[in-house]
């Protein structure tokens, strides 16, 4: 488990060749009307990795469909129970077929056809029981660290976020990329003013242009949403310019070259650092692109993230279904108050107890330990947050994923 040498993880081998670091049974409701049954089934398994995800909408949406298919075949997922009411629009048969084709134990329960709430819960419970014993025998295989995909988000930021946790996460991202793995950052709404700098990091000029267009799209979208607070605010906290404010968030991406742009549930094709564009294409239709931090994490996970780094100053407690969340606390006072929720104390940089580089090493070591099975704080506390709503995206253009 050394940082300089080759790090290998013994993970769960999936039929598509990907390796998971968790072996979760997912219970997926396919409309809000089936959520209760899904939740009640999961409540029989409080000590097992049984996670509830789902899509609440009854109207079909190709983005949500893609997300659900990607999540149900995520390498951290061992088995899937689909819970359908029966009359919703979600394409349950295609999702069932895709999970079957991935070699995972899967069952579809239609509540109407099964005979209501009670019978559906009983059937679901029986399936989860058998699935848990079946996936205990999933073959184990070596996951080279190079095959890991790591995402980063921030939430509940304060004046310390841009000083400690975000620069440390960025330094950790540089190390992850140097070690040959894949890293994904997102939230173009926080990159306004830095698009030229980001374009300069792109591996091709065409990708650079796409990155600029992506940030411009975000600026326009958020302004129309009435979220135009991009003027230099918080001067009291020492921030002088818009670039500086954006940089406090953008520095989570580190300094590696950007090898591609993906959208939620797209899989990175080569190793290296990716930007995820989470802002829908076209005219704003369904409201705020990501109204909370959970949705962002779920999108990174849909693109294959094995785990997610989450920096916070004020103290978010959120975790996620499917992939572990590593909480990096920027503010030493927050850490003191909420230590049980925080995996990494980046705020100690302000007390001269560690350098940014040392905290970055701690983060990378933590990722390796978590990949070996160590539970993160949010996992131990039972956090399994999940949210998914409507969006619309155009397919990726040819410049987004340059050949490597």
């Amino acid at each position, binding site marked *: 488990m050394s940082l300089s040498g080759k790090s290998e993880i013994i993970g769960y081998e999936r039929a598509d060749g990907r390796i998971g670091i968790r072996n979760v049974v997912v219970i997926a409701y396919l409309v809000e009307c089936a959520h209760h049954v899904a939740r009640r089934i999961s409540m029989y398994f409080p000590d097992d990795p049984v996670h509830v995800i789902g899509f609440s909408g009854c109207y079909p949406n190709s983005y949500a469909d893609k997300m659900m298919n990607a999540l149900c075949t995520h390498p951290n997922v061992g088995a899937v129970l689909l819970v359908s009411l029966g009359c919703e629009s979600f394409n349950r048969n295609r999702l069932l077929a895709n999970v079957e084709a991935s070699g995972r134990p899967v069952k579809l329960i239609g509540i109407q056809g099964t005979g209501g709430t009670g019978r559906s819960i009983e059937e679901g419970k029986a399936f989860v029981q058998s699935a848990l014993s079946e996936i205990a025998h999933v073959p184990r295989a070596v996951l080279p660290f190079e095959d890991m995909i790591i995402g980063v988000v921030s939430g509940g930021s304060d004046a310390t976020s841009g*000083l400690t946790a975000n620069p440390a996460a960025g330094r950790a991202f540089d190390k992850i990329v140097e070690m040959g793995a894949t890293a994904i950052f997102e939230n173009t709404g926080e990159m306004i003013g830095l698009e030229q700098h980001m374009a300069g990091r792109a591996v091709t000029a065409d990708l650079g242009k796409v990155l600029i267009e992506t940030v411009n799209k975000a600026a326009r979208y958020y302004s129309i949403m009435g979220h135009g607070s991009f003027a230099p605010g918080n001067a009291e906290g020492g921030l002088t310019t818009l670039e500086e404010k954006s940089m406090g968030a953008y520095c989570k991406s580190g300094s590696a070259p950007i090898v591609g742009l993906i959208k939620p549930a797209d899989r990175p094709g080569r190793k290296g650092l990716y930007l995820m564009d989470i802002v829908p294409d076209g005219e704003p239709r369904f409201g705020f692109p990501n109204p909370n931090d959970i949705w962002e994490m779920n999108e990174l996970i849909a693109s294959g993230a094995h785990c997610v780094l989450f920096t916070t100053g004020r103290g978010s407690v959120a975790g996620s279904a499917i992939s572990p969340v590593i909480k990096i606390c920027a503010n030493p006072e927050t850490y003191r108050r909420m230590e049980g929720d925080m995996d990494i104390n980046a705020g100690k940089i302000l007390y001269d107890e560690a350098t940014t580089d040392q905290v970055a090493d701690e983060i990378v070591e933590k990722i390796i330990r978590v990949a070996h099975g160590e539970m993160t704080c949010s996992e131990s506390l039972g956090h399994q947050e999940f949210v998914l709503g409507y969006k619309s995206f155009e397919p990726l253009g040819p410049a987004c994923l340059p050949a490597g």
Partner: protein
Amino acid sequence: MEKLLRIHRDDNVLVVKRLIGAGEMMRFDGEELVYDYPIGLGHKIAAEFIPKGEKVIKFGIPIGSATEDIPKGAHVHLHNLKSDYLPTFTLDHEFIGKK
């Protein structure tokens, strides 16, 4: 305990990590500095002389330009640093406002 933090090796500003009180004497790089107003967490201090028009570097990238000569050790904020970006953003904002 050090009161200033260098975020990136290329930075020409340092960040205050512990409040510097008004009138408090602070040693910085062999010099003694006293500020006549308090400078709080997150504020910037020039790590070197920054001539007027020169880029101010934080996080290793330019965050704007000096609007006057900034002596080493001086507080860097709205009075001596301006965004290089704001005009572009303002144009974009007007464009959206017309729609």
